[in-house]
């Protein structure tokens, strides 16, 4: 899908994508497991055990009040308790945090981009909790976490004046990503989708990242709808507003497809904001 787009990108951008630190092997093995490939939880747990920090985080989550009272004692116990998708999310989140630097092109400091992804991930999870009958894939959480990774690449490898993009968008009354496209030839959603493909994420994750700012969509994808909404919620709770602010495209009927009215949307915003506050407080408390 994206190979033709990739060919049109500047060499610096393509190099930036291929030079991006690869996802840990654990993430690929977890994705293989989710696809139904021949993988076992035991072998994945063994792989996790090589990362003591990750195992510690996993055990904390597995032994939190949310789960059963019998303590998880090792990585395998923890994986079985929290589920493979949650473990994948943790692995990807830790990896993203290790990559994240400021994205000055977008007016985002070192914490902003990561917090925006984390807030979107929490929002996707809250949406799936509120609307279980929609059967939104759990990989929506991962797609939401990664949906703006294209901003990292563009900030690192292109010299783009954020204020010029903002001024252009205001003058021509277009969204920020439309202004990106007109000024630099592509936007962060395209780059993000190429990164997702490079990291061997499922095709529907790359599609959701590519189209999360489409005002009109022809794709019948609950995962895409979930990422659109998750991005919206993250902005509502003030995570990663940056230069773009609220000047972004989103389908005006996404709430209908997700069967949301204002009270449920507000509930998701509240859940996300509270979880985000706890996440940020927890990350600041780490030694």
């Amino acid at each position, binding site marked *: 899908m994206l190979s033709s787009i990739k060919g049109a990108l500047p060499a610096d951008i393509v190099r930036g994508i291929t030079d991006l630190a690869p996802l840990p092997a654990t993430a690929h093995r977890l994705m293989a497991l989710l696809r139904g490939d021949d993988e076992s939880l035991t072998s994945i747990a063994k792989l996790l055990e090589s990362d003591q920090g990750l195992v510690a985080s996993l055990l904390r989550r597995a032994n939190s009040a949310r789960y059963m009272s019998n303590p998880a004692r090792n990585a395998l116990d923890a994986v079985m308790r929290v589920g493979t998708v949650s473990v994948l999310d943790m692995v990807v989140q830790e990896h993203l945090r290790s990559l994240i630097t400021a994205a000055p092109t977008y007016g985002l400091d070192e914490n902003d981009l990561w917090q925006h992804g984390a807030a979107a991930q929490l929002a996707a999870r809250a949406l799936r909790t509120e609307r279980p009958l929609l059967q939104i894939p759990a990989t929506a959480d991962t797609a939401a976490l990664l949906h703006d990774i294209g901003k990292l690449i563009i900030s690192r490898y292109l010299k783009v004046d954020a204020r010029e993009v903002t001024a252009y968008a205001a003058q021509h009354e277009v969204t920020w990503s439309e202004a990106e496209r007109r000024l630099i030839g592509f936007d962060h959603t395209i780059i993000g989708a190429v990164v997702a493909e490079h990291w061997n994420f499922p095709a529907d994750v790359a599609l959701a990242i590519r189209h999360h700012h489409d005002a009109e969509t022809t794709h019948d994808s609950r995962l895409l709808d979930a990422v659109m909404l998750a991005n919206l919620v993250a902005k509502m709770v*003030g995570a990663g507003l940056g230069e773009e602010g609220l000047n972004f495209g*989103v389908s005006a009927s996404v709430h209908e497809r997700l069967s*949301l009215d*204002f*009270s449920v949307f507000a509930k998701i*915003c509240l859940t996300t904001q509270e979880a985000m506050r706890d996440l940020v407080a927890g990350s600041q408390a780490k030694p």
Partner: protein
Amino acid sequence: MSTTIDPAGTCRGSRLVVGIGELAVSQSPDDMIITHALGSCIAVCVWDPQVRVAGLLHFLLPEAKLNMDRAKRQPATFADSGIALLFQTAYKQGVDKSRCIVRLVGGAEVAGLQGVAALNVGKRNLLAARQILWQNGVMVSGESTGGTIPRTVNLRASDGVVDVRTGRDMVATL
């Protein structure tokens, strides 16, 4: 000194940072009350020039009934419970509602969602704030609201002036 305020707190310090669902009231002329990342949220800024008390509320959603449990735990999250708490806290510092100068900042809307009631938090917040203040006999004397821009607010406790910025640019002085 930078201080984050819990709901319904007053604090001495030179730089008081107010987050979502929080408020601050100050009568120290050296204080600056600040809130960041106002998108669809609203900052309600009050100033009583006689007793020289400044207050700022940063709320997320219009009505406490959206989540009564949250409203009990953190009333400043919502316009109705939060504005009431802001004024109650200010009254303890000698503020008189009839003297208050009130400004509203924020309430931005997502491009393309202005007509979508189910998702338009910014517009709902703005309407809620205006209605609650009007119903309580409080006039709004200045606003920097709407559009799609994110805003940061600095409220000076020395003179009640509100500076509104987006990024590095000054948007308004209220």
